[in-house]
């Protein structure tokens, strides 16, 4: 590790049982962040400052004024600019050594397969259920551990899925639920969920501590409550259950 990198991360390499070895693992890991909205901004920022030096940022949207209550990588002068490339510029300003791949289009199953092919960990900070399920499908097929973030109003959740060992997202999502056109959300909720996702990625790639998988890690910021609620795997799940993978139904 270079002397200036040691200096940059001196506050974390001194953490017992983390050390230079974990720092080097972060530097050589590649994490895909799907969605650079309120949650994804926080995730990407904290992965970058932690020392993850290979990131993929996926988002097709442009920055709007109404994003600025929670999308902390953006500022007023960024309006109408693409989210993913703007986020990449901000992160590069923090650490020019980060290699950032930017994908600024809607991604389907095949795109996701390409994107995650050489990734160590996958973060789902997308909005739409269909997109989340595509990530879930690919991660299950490729046996990639993924973390999924949900944020709404003053409550947020992180779910980490370990394919074959835990329930998958398809087991637990309410696919028929009507998604609102606009989700009410506080910036603090997006921030906590985004940081929760980054923390899951950091723990997974370094092996530090204990990574809670197969649970809803649920924060109620309105009433200062944290819950960890186990998820049940469904035997009839078309992705991970006895019904088998739906791969091929494209």
């Amino acid at each position, binding site marked *: 590790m270079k002397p200036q990198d040691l200096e940059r991360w001196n506050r974390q390499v001194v953490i017992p049982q983390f050390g230079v070895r974990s720092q080097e693992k972060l530097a050589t890991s590649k994490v895909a962040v799907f969605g650079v*909205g309120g949650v994804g901004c926080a995730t990407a920022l904290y992965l970058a400052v932690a020392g993850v030096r290979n990131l993929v940022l996926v988002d097709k949207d442009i920055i709007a004024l109404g994003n600025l209550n929670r999308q902390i990588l953006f500022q007023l002068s960024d309006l109408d600019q693409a989210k993913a490339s703007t986020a990449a510029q901000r992160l590069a300003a923090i650490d020019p050594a980060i290699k950032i791949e930017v994908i600024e289009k809607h991604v389907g199953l095949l795109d996701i397969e390409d994107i995650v092919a050489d990734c160590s960990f996958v973060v*789902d900070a997308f909005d739409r259920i269909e997109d989340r399920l595509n990530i879930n499908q690919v991660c299950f097929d490729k046996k990639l551990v993924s973390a999924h973030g949900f944020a709404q109003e003053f409550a947020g959740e992180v779910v980490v899925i370990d394919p074959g060992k835990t329930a998958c997202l398809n087991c637990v999502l309410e696919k028929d639920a009507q998604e609102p056109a606009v989700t009410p959300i506080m910036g603090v909720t997006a921030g906590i969920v*985004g940081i929760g996702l980054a923390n899951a990625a950091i723990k997974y790639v370094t092996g530090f501590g204990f990574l809670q998988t197969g649970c809803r890690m649920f924060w109620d910021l*309105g009433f200062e409550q944290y819950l960890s*609620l186990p*998820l049940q795997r469904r035997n009839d799940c078309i992705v991970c259950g006895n019904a088998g993978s739906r791969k091929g139904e494209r």
Partner: protein
Amino acid sequence: MKIMVRYYGYLTRETNKHYEEINVDDGTTIRTLFDKLVIQYGTRIRELCVPKGELRQSSVTVNRQDLRDSRLFPEGIDTVVQEGEIVALIGPLSGAA
């Protein structure tokens, strides 16, 4: 007696509330609490939390404890609520990012 009911995710849209204090009769169970809520807010609230009458995927907690935990709640959805308890209806995973 009074209990506190908290709503999360999709449920806040069904109720237009995050929480409320509700008067219930002695002997009220989680199942009969849903009967009461359905009268006020419609059937969707029950469908989201206890589809087909079953507790699935951590929909309900009582005083921060998962109602599916059979050691704590051997009666499950027929657990009787007590004065001052906090019942959280969390519903399915939801929310944007």
